[in-house]
């Protein structure tokens, strides 16, 4: 019996390791081909060089500063766009009149690629912070809008009828039935919007900025500084993974009832 417990434990920790195997193998292989000299270090610097570059930029304060600024732009854009998308999605989900008035317009705007908006955004808002935050907000608004809207209109009508039969009034109906029922879909939109937040930010930070991770990358690109380019890509990957992790945990905590 002790043996089975030990086996289970091994099995458990092994499962935790599996997702990391491929990335680690890739990094080791990458280090190897550069160290051996199969690929020139100017074209592809080794992971170790990238790490050193990261350490240097951290000590000089450049990396923390740019990361902070990027995170600020991303967060403010996300909060603004997300709130608007949520409120709009909620209202359109609940009210048929609002749906008729707004939904087709929103659906039309949704299909415009963010990149196409850049000239317009520059004309309207200039090249300062508002323009960047605006782009991120636009990017984050739609996934949250769509998911909130769909989450609400696809709440099981049978459960709503049950609520009516048991005498729930409008506000209690929203609080106790509509919102919790739509929450899984809303959180899916939240998770997706976090991804869009980073991709839009990269675009936004190339508009003319002198700060942010996107700037660091484009600036390095101009001077073929591969180390910093790869560092920036890795930072994006990490930030993306981190936001996804946060979103996933929100789902686990708020949707505990799904079992």
């Amino acid at each position, binding site marked *: 019996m002790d043996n089975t417990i030990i086996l289970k434990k091994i099995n458990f920790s092994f499962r935790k390791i599996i997702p990391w195997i491929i990335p680690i193998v890739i990094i080791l292989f990458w280090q190897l081909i550069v160290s051996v000299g199969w690929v020139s270090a100017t074209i592809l610097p080794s992971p170790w060089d990238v790490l050193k570059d990261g350490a240097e930029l951290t000590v000089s304060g450049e990396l923390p500063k740019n990361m902070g600024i990027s995170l600020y732009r991303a967060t403010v854009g996300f909060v603004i766009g997300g709130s608007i998308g949520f409120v709009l999605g909620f209202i359109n989900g609940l009210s048929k009149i609002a749906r008729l008035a707004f939904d087709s317009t929103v659906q039309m705007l949704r299909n415009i690629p963010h990149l196409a908006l850049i000239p317009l955004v520059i004309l309207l808002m200039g090249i300062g912070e508002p323009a960047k935050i605006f782009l991120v907000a636009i990017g984050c608004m739609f996934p949250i809008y769509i998911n909130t809207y769909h989450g609400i209109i696809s709440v099981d009508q049978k459960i709503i009828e049950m609520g009516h039969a048991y005498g729930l009034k409008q506000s209690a109906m929203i609080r106790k039935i509509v919102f919790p029922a739509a929450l899984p879909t809303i959180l899916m939109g939240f998770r997706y919007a976090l991804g869009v937040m980073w991709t839009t930010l990269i675009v936004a930070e190339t508009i*003319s900025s002198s700060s942010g991770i996107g700037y660091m990358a484009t600036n390095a*690109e101009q001077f073929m500084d591969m180390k910093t380019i790869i560092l920036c890509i890795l930072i994006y990957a990490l930030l993306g993974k981190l936001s996804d992790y946060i979103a996933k945990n*929100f789902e686990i905590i708020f949707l505990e009832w799904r079992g």
Partner: protein
Amino acid sequence: MTHTLRKTLLFILLFFWILITVYGWFQIREESNPTLKTVTIGFQAGDEFDIAKSRGKFATKMEKKGYKVKFKEFQNGAAMMQALATGNIDYARVGDTPPVSALAAGTKLTYVAAGGTKEKGSGIVVKKNSGINSMADLKGKRVAYTKGTSSQYMVLRALKTAGLGINDIKWVNLDQDAAAVAYSKNKVDAWANWDPTVAQVEITENSKLLVNGQQAGAVNRSFIVSPSKFAKNHQSLSKLVIKYGEQDMHWANTHHKQVIKLMTKELKLSKKVVTLEIERRTFGIYKMNDKYVKEEQEIADMFYQSGVLNKQATVAKHVDYLK
């Protein structure tokens, strides 16, 4: 993982997220002084204004005259011209071709000053072991350039100077980073470019300048341009920019060691590359004159004739000759 543990972890992560966000906000918030008039200057990494910005004296002097200088960095001239057209920057330090293209596109801009040239640090680079030793050897070879930039003008001029025709080479239009890879992988035989990339390539890719801007007749001068309306109303400010800018340029020409140090840090290039660049470059900021206008007009003419631009710009109509 237990629920409490998960919640705690999430709380800590969000706490740090917000902490870093607030830190970023403080970084970005400018201590704007309302009594000062803001002057926004667009620049590109490693150029005249980058030196003025890094040295710091320019902004201090301007502040004493009642102007707060805001430097905005751009990745390329085209982006800067776009910002200029929409009135988002007051002065733009660009290369020789972007203002010509912008004029042809109808942008209302005015040349207020000229800078130094990169005639010894721009041109067509080839690998030392490529067997290409003269412009004539370039016949039939693949030459990388970026459409609408100085590199295209340089190739056109170099061909003309060498008595070759436009179709004697294979033109390969690539943007900067694609060209870097193509060149390093020998997918192209030559690459028209300018410092610091040329210096970088000479050192890391075992390359040489087949022909430089001086030999080709394309000097690759920089210019300072403004929105026309702004230039008309701010002539005294433009004079200040030239005066203080020139003081920094004089300093740069006489203090190579410090400039190399500043730029090595700013451009994140090796000291060797920056040294090569700085040693062969003369910095300056001058009032406009007929010679500079003629240089620009030649670009406008050649771009029009070879079909790069579909409208001919008359540069002389858009110049502010400050007294």
